[in-house]
């Protein structure tokens, strides 16, 4: 029988299925972070050990200070210390603040070769969908489920529906994975893929680097999907080869991975198609990732909207301090942020640096590489100097201003052009106004001090 990639991954890991339809799945990799303290506490209450510390990995990222020379406040220090202690006492390998491999969990999993095709990967973080870029079944879970995985190395899951998003054609210069993500979320809505596992396919997807695929799968949750998936190919295999945790027997692994694709006549519950050539650089204007517009677009007008949408649009415009019906381009910004599990990888930094090289930013901003190894690589390439000479602050890695838990915040009423994944009210700080976009678009906004079509700034610079 023809099967989707999702079904193949599910079948590999299904231990048993209950009469109500839920299956118990084996978990190959479980990442924990500072926020996992609720789950460790629950395990302690029940007097249970971690079942498979060898398949569990601790990562300090959510509260990681990006200015490592400053003393973090007591709450933040306690959150990091609690993870240190939980990992140490349970025998869990831990990428702590001082580890040269430290970084954001969804960046260092792939970087270390812990993320591989065919695996099941869970973490108490919704952006675990990122790892699906390798053809791994990867999804975010809550604290009760984290405790369950710690105790049993398994999780109960009810079946999901499948959606294939096919993107064929060639992306225009300056348009990339973030634009694909925001384009489909803008079209289908923030719950457009709810209850579904998305498989991305088509020539524009095959043409993406691993970094781009990670960005795309990362954003799957913003359209309501639990997982994004991309079938592994030569680009995937080349990325994995030589990673510290790449399989010792790569031939055996690759033979196994070669079966990981959706059969040609496999049936998806839903099919969506996008034309790559028609995707323009996208920015968000409101307070949900579905509030996405091409940079050439105009802000929606509640007076022209359907009655059930008018109130939502008016509320979002009011929060964002924007006027209905105006072009989105030209909106003045106060600051920029480049980083996060969405866009903190080396290719993202290169794309931003390409726009910024030899130019000054008109607004302040922060650049936080996704991991310490990426920071080191960027410094070898001289990217840190490009950012510094543009007037942006080059800091250490962590979740930083995407979620603000470490104190990196956007002040109330301030407008930030950001490479992150959520423009929710208050996400970057109480009252903060977030516009999501690609790293190159953030760089263009920095240079001009307003939301700008980066394509006007690429002349003579090629494209990253």
């Amino acid at each position, binding site marked *: 029988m023809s099967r989707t990639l999702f079904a193949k991954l599910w079948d590999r890991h299904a231990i048993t299925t209950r009469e109500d339809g839920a299956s118990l799945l084996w978990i190959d*990799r479980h990442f924990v972070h500072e926020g996992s303290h609720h789950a460790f506490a629950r395990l302690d209450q029940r007097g249970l050990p971690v079942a498979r510390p060898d398949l569990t990995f601790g990562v300090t990222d959510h509260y990681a200070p990006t200015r490592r020379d400053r003393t973090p406040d007591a709450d933040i220090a306690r959150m990091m210390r609690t993870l240190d202690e939980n990992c140490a006492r349970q025998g869990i390998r831990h990428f702590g603040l001082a580890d040269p491999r430290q970084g954001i969990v969804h960046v260092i999993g792939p970087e270390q070769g812990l993320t591989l095709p065919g695996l099941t990967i869970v973490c108490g973080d919704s952006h675990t969908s990122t790892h699906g870029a390798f053809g791994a079944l990867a999804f975010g879970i809550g604290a009760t489920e984290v405790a369950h995985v710690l105790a049993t190395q398994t999780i109960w899951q009810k079946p999901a529906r499948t959606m294939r998003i096919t993107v064929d054609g060639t992306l225009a210069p300056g348009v990339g994975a973030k634009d694909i993500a925001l384009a489909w979320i803008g079209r289908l809505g923030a719950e457009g893929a*709810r209850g579904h596992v998305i498989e991305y396919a088509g020539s524009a997807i095959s043409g993406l680097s691993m970094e781009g695929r990670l960005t795309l799968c990362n954003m799957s949750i913003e359209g309501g999907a639990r997982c994004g998936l991309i079938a592994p190919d030569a680009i995937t295999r080349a990325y994995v080869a030589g990673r510290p945790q790449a399989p010792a027997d790569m031939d055996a692994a690759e033979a196994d991975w070669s079966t990981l694709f959706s059969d040609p006549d496999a049936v998806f519950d839903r099919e969506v198609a996008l034309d790559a050539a028609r995707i323009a650089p996208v920015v968000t204007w409101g307070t949900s990732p579905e509030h996405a517009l091409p940079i050439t677009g105009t802000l929606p007008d509640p007076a022209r909207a359907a009655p059930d949408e008018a109130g939502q649009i008016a509320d979002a415009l009011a929060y964002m301090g924007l006027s209905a019906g105006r072009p989105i381009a030209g909106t003045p910004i106060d600051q920029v942020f480049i980083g996060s599990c969405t866009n903190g990888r080396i290719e993202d930094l290169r794309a931003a640096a390409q726009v910024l090289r030899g130019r000054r930013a008109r607004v302040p901003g922060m650049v936080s590489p996704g991991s310490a190894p990426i920071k080191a690589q960027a410094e070898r390439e001289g990217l840190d100097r490009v950012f510094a000479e543009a007037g942006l602050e080059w800091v250490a890695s962590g979740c930083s201003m995407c979620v603000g838990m470490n104190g990196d915040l956007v002040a109330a009423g301030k407008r930030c052009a950001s490479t992150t994944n959520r423009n929710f009210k208050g996400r970057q700080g109480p009252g903060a106004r977030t516009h999501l976009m690609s790293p190159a678009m953030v760089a263009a906004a920095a240079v001009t001090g307003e939301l700008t079509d980066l394509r006007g700034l690429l002349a003579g610079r090629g494209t990253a």
Partner: protein
Amino acid sequence: MSGWQTHNGRAARLMLDNVDTDQLIPARFMSTPRSAGYGDFLLHDLRASGTAVIDPGVSVLIAGRNFGCGSSREAAVYALVDFGIRAVLAPGFGDIFAANAANNGLLCAVTDTAALTTDTTIHIDLAALTIRQGAHTSGFDLDPVWQRKLINGWDDIDLTTRAAGTISDFSAAYAVRHPWTVPRQG
């Protein structure tokens, strides 16, 4: 966690769609131990600005589409439960939020809320999957896995531990079939 089958309570209504987990509990409160109680954090900034009003004693929330979208933070559910909310009625929910809710005895009922009001008591029957208010009765959707869990108050760890033998047999066979999945040491 104890299970439940019926609930009667007064409701509050949130007009907005896409009420995300960052609204349900802003990140800055998440370093708090659960024992301190999360009820005061519920919709903290939306309540502070007057966008959301939830009177004490309310135990049912009527919400817009895609309620609980966003992060996997179970603290969003803790804030609702600790405030005293037993059920959220909405056209749709974020998947991870809904799974977390089922693990904490909180019902996420998928339903058309147009006919419901905040004026009188709402009666919820988990077994019959019905909502009754005055003369009005309507059904709601709930995954059977979550329905059973809410009614029985099940803790999955207890259920899974009973399958320990099946799991160890599976993991041994799996490691033989896919030996490359075992991470290296160091």
